[in-house]
């Protein structure tokens, strides 16, 4: 049994409840909780976004998220992280992903939280399609 077996990592079609993630990661030993929200922004490459469509390979996405939480547990044994990614249609300002990290110390909470979002963007099989006023396009990362 790994340390992150019961960790919270989920792909959902519903609005993300950040408090659920905080409750999942915060312990009495923590002095710091860092929460990151990826949100839909209005402009992309100088075009106006009407909304986004997120698609996921959900079983693999959750597996890769769990792998990332394992990486956090190895690198920062005192910390815990959680990841929830939303899919489907999202409007401007809505959160596509929320990451929470609970930590005894503030510096490491930022480092771990940033590590998680960077890894999510590299590894987790989720894609967004930008729907503009005059067309639409799947965004493909590097």
């Amino acid at each position, binding site marked *: 049994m790994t340390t992150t077996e019961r960790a919270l990592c989920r792909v959902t079609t519903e609005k993300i409840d950040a408090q659920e993630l905080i409750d999942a990661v915060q312990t009495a030993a923590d002095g710091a909780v860092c929460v990151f929200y990826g949100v839909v922004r209005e402009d992309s490459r100088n075009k106006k976004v009407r909304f986004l469509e997120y698609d996921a390979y959900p079983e693999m996405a959750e597996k890769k998220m769990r792998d990332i939480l394992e990486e956090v547990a190895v690198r920062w044994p005192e910390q815990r992280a959680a990841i929830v990614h939303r899919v489907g249609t999202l409007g401007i300002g809505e959160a596509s992903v929320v990451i929470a990290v609970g930590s005894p110390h503030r510096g490491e909470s930022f480092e771990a939280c940033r590590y998680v979002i960077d890894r999510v963007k590299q590894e987790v*099989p989720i*894609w967004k*399609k930008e729907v503009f006023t005059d067309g639409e396009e*799947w965004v*493909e*990362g590097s």
Partner: protein
Amino acid sequence: MRVRLRYFASIRERLGRTTEELEVPEGALVSEVWERLVAECPALEQQRYRPAVNQEYTSPGHVLRDGDELVFIPPVSGGL
């Protein structure tokens, strides 16, 4: 032997389907399945992807086994 394919995002839209079962020869490589898709749908020729077998990233030279789930993962763009 048979492998199960699932399609997502741009590849799904180009192929116009989400899943299929394919009959492939023993010892078939991931890259050979991709070539069949490109032959069917030339628009995929320029498509970048990472293959995943049974939900783990792998290489185009991966040898498939009966019952594998194979997905060609377009460059991911989740997060924000």
